[in-house]
């Protein structure tokens, strides 16, 4: 009996030891230290367990992309994940100047893509297509950085954070979800190029000389001087506007700011609101063609502000 028990224990131990190497999760990690390095990771068709890819680069002029691509390609992706099941994660971290990072996730449900860059003149591109419940995050710290996010699939969340100056961020969020785009510093540019979106879209800018633009709906909050905000939605921005209530809101604190809202839907209910606090601000809002529409323009210093309001039923 004792020997039988020992045999069972031994067999179990061997089975566990041998199965340990065959865990369901698939992981890929690339680490590079130095300048002008290139990294490319592709994970496709993993039908079992979770999939994780990580690229970490330290140095200048690094490229997390297809080394055989020759040119900058937003299609290939520094990390390409396609057709995987389970939770799929792709993360790129770069420290230095002039780096480029690209992530593309396709056909994945339960996916997360994250890019973090510290330095100047860096560029990030993150694309998530298909599936649902995606999460996309780009964090850039430095000057003259560029971040671009494209996300499709219901319930997706986009979070972009840029600090310092002369940064640019563009988010194309398709279908429902949440977008938060935050910029702190000077002369930053934010653009929401959204189509068919139902959800919360928010741009927050802290600093001066910034500009923010949304082509459909959402809210823009700016704290500083000489900022410009614009929300413009026209035509068939939404697939079925009558099903949704659209809102556009701009809140500005500071002097010599400019705000503009223009909504022109063939159906649906709209809300346009501009709230400016300071001197020398200019606000312009209008609803065209909406069934039920409300326009608010708040100017806290009317003697020096020039509002304009236009409504047409």
């Amino acid at each position, binding site marked *: 009996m004792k020997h039988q028990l020992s045999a069972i224990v031994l067999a179990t131990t061997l089975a566990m030891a041998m199965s340990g190497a065959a865990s369901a999760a698939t992981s890929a990690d690339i680490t*590079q230290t130095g*300048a002008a390095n*290139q990294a490319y990771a*592709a994970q*496709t068709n993993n039908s079992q367990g979770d999939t994780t890819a990580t690229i970490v680069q330290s140095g200048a002029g690094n490229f997390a992309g297809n080394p055989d691509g020759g040119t900058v390609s937003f299609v290939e992706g520094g990390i390409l994940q396609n057709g995987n099941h389970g939770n799929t994660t792709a993360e790129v971290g770069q420290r230095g100047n002039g780096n480029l990072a690209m992530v593309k996730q396709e056909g994945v449900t339960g996916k997360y893509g994250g890019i973090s860059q510290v330095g100047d003149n860096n560029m990030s591109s993150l694309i998530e297509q298909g599936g649902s419940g995606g999460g996309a995050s780009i964090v850039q710290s430095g000057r003259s950085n560029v971040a671009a996010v494209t996300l499709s699939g219901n319930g997706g969340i986009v979070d972009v954070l840029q600090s310092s100056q002369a940064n640019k961020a563009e988010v194309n969020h398709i279908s429902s979800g949440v977008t938060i785009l935050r910029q702190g510093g000077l002369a930053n540019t934010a653009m929401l190029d959204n189509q068919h979106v139902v959800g919360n879209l928010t741009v927050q800018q802290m600093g001066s000389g910034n500009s923010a633009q949304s082509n459909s709906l959402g809210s823009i909050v700016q704290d500083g001087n000489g900022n410009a905000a614009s929300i413009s939605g026209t035509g068939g921005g939404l697939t079925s506007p009558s099903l949704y209530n659209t809102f556009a809101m701009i809140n500005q604190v500071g002097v010599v700011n400019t705000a503009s809202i223009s909504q022109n839907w063939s159906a649906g209910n709209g809300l346009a609101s501009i709230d400016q606090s300071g001197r020398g601000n200019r606000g312009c809002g209008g609803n065209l063609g909406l069934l039920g529409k409300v326009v608010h323009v708040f100017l806290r210093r009317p003697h020096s502000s020039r509002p304009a309001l236009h409504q047409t039923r």
Partner: protein
Amino acid sequence: MINHRTCPPVKPWLRRAAALGCALGVSIMAAPTFAADLARTSELGPSDLELASGLDARRIASVALIEQRGTANAAHLEQQGSRHAAQLVQRGQGNVLRSAQSGSLQQSSVLQEGSANEASLVQSGSSHQLEVRQVGSSNAATAAQSGSGNRGQIDQQGSFNRADLTQSGKGTTATLSQQGNGGIATLVVH
């Protein structure tokens, strides 16, 4: 087993070493070319191998060891079966190393010190493990693993190195690490 059609005549001690490797289920082909060349194979105890290479000694049934010093050397190793281990060392420049393992639970450990070296490893089957370490510049490491539960790791120190690792199968782990400038790392898992 030594392939005399592709390899030049070798010294008697190397024949005996190869015979020992054959008895262990190991096939070795080492081709000395220009400079001083040292190739040997021996049977190590599990604890010795673990200390020598960091491989998991508990999984090892037999061991093949190749060590070459000098320039423009070539080494070729083949292992078939289960639980074999290979430790391949080349020190110098312009060396070429080829390794092929099939079966299951095979392990390869490669160390190349110098510049312009090339290592190519292929593992087919399941639960394999490979580790390549190159110290120097303009080196290239290529590895392919097919099957489930494989683990691959390539570490390179120096400039203008290239690392390529391809895995097909489930539950795989891949790690590429480069320190230096102008490196290229490509990792494909499908």
